[in-house]
C-alpha cells in the first residue's frame, strides 16, 4: 500500500534520514521504533509532506506521492496524528474535531463520528466547549487522536499516541488502534512504549541514526537481544 524507497531527508544542514526503505501492506499495523532522535518522527513527517524528501521515492497505492504537499497526501488517504499533540490552542475541542474532518463533506456522518469519539473519550465530551489550549496534557493527546480519526483515512499514522496518557486510557487507545486495523484501516505506529507496539503489530521496523537496522514480525523483534537491551529495558 505504502512503499518507501531510499528516502533521504533532513533539516537545514542536518540529515535526519539516511536512506530509508519500508513497506506498509494494506490492512496491517506496522510499528516503527527507535531511540530519541533516531528519525521516527521525521519519517512520518516526510510521508505526510511536512518535510520534503531530498531523494528517494514514496508511493501510496501505486501513486507517486514524493514531494506532495500535506493536503494532497491527506486527500489521497493518509492521515497523520503528529507528535506532541499539536491541538489548535484557541479553538474549542469541538472545533478541533471538526478540523479533522476538514476535507470531508456530509455533516451527518461527521457528527456521528464526532459522537463516537466522545464515547471513546468521555473526557472530551465534558470539555466540548473548552479552548483546547487549556486542556490538560493527556486531554490534548486524546483530542489529537480523535481529530486524526475524524478524517477517515485509509492509512493512519500515529506518532507516540500513548504519550502522557493515563494507563487505563493507554489501554483504551491501543484497543482503538487495534480496532481500526481490524476494521480494515492500515496503521503506521511510532511508539516509545515499544513492548506494547511490538506486541500488537503485524510488522515492525527498528530505526537507528536515520537508518532501518532491523525489521520483522513484532514477536521477532521482541525476541531480539539488541532490541531487548536497548528498547525494552530488559
Amino acid at each position, binding site marked *: 500500500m505504502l512503499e518507501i524507497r531510499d528516502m533521504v531527508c533532513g533539516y537545514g544542514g542536518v540529515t535526519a534520514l539516511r536512506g530509508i526503505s519500508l513497506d506498509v501492506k494494506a490492512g496491517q499495523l506496522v510499528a516503527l521504533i527507535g531511540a530519541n532522535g533516531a528519525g521516527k518522527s521525521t519519517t512520518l513527517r516526510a510521508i505526510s509532506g511536512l518535510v520534503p524528501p531530498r531523494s528517494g521515492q514514496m508511493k501510496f497505492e501505486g501513486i507517486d506521492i514524493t514531494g506532495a504537499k500535506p493536503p494532497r497526501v491527506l486527500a489521497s488517504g493518509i492521515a497523520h496524528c503528529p507528535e506532541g499533540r499539536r491541538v489548535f490552542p484557541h479553538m474549542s475541542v469541538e472545533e478541533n474535531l471538526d478540523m479533522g474532518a476538514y476535507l470531508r463533506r456530509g455533516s451527518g456522518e461527521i457528527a456521528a463520528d464526532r459522537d463516537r469519539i466522545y464515547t471513546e473519550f468521555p473526557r472530551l465530551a465534558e470539555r466540548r466547549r473548552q479552548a483546547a489550549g487549556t486542556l490538560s*496534557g493527556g486531554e490534548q*493527546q486524546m483530542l489529537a487522536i480523535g481529530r486524526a480519526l475524524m478524517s477517515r483515512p485509509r492509512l493512519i499514522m500515529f506518532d507516540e499516541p500513548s504519550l*502522557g496518557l*493515563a*494507563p*487505563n486510557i493507554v489501554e483504551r487507545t491501543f484497543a482503538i488502534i487495534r480496532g481500526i486495523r481490524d476494521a480494515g484501516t492500515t496503521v503506521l505506529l511510532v511508539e516509545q512504549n*515499544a513492548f506494547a507496539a511490538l506486541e500488537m503489530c503485524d510488522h515492525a521496523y527498528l530505526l537507528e541514526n536515520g537508518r532501518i537496522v532491523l525489521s520483522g514480525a513484532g514477536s521477532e523483534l521482541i525476541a531480539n537481544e539488541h532490541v531487548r537491551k536497548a528498547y525494552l529495558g530488559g
Partner: protein
Amino acid sequence: MTARSIAMTIDQVAVRFGGLVAISDMSFEVGEGEIVSLIGPNGAGKTTAFNVMTGFLTPSAGRVTYRNTALAGLKPHEIADLGLIRTFQRTSVFPNDTVYDNLLIGLHRQGRVRLLDAILGLPSARASERKLRQRAGELLEWVGLERRAHDAAGSLSYGEQRLVGVALALAAEPSMLLLDEPVSGMNASETHRFVELIRGIRDRGITILLVEHDMPMVMTVSDRIVVLNYGRIIAEGTPDVIRNDPAVIEAYLGHGAGRA
C-alpha cells in the same frame, strides 16, 4: 516517615477555572529527601497542582508552604529562588539557543553578579563566568547530550528536548524538584537510565515530587504515592498499597496496569 522533617505542605488547596473545579480541597505533605509521586487520570489536576506550588497560579483557596515559607503572593521566580524548581509537561527549552547556552541560562541562580561588575568586566564577574561554563559542561555530560551541545535546542527531537528540560531544572540547583512527566517520550531502556538519575539526585538530598503515568517507573522509584481524581485525593500510601487499591485501579490503572 514522621521522623523526617517536612519540606512542603499543601493545605486545603482548591483551584477553579470559571465554573470548572480543577482541584478541590487538596492536602498532603512531602518530607525532606523523599520521592513522592502524584498520579491520577488525565485532567485530574496534577499539573495544576504544580502550577500552584510554583506560583504560576494563585489557588482559589488554601495555601502551600515550603520549608516554613508561605508561598502565597510570591512570584514564580521568587519561588525558584527558594530552591523549588519544576519541569514542564510540554517540551520547554530556549529554542534558538544552543543546548549549552540553554544550560548557561538555566544556571542563572549561580551566576548572579552585580550588573555594574558585569558591565565593567571585573575579575569577580569573569571568575563566576568560568565556573558557570564548567558546570554547564558537567550537566551536559550528565544527561548525555554532549554530542548536541552546539545544536540549537529547538532542533532536537522530542525526547532530547525533554532531557534538556530536566537538565535545565537541575542547573537551577533545586532543593526540591517537581518533575512533570519526565519520562514521557522515552522508551523503557531510556527510562531505566532516568530512574538511576533520579536516585542520584535524591542521594544528593534533593526532595522530589514526581508526576508520571509510567507505572512501572512510579512504582519502583517512589517512597510514597498520592492519587488524585477529579481534583480530589482518593488514595495515599506506599506503592504496594496504591497498586492494589480498588478505587485507584478503577479510576486510573485499568486492569492491565502491570504492563503499561
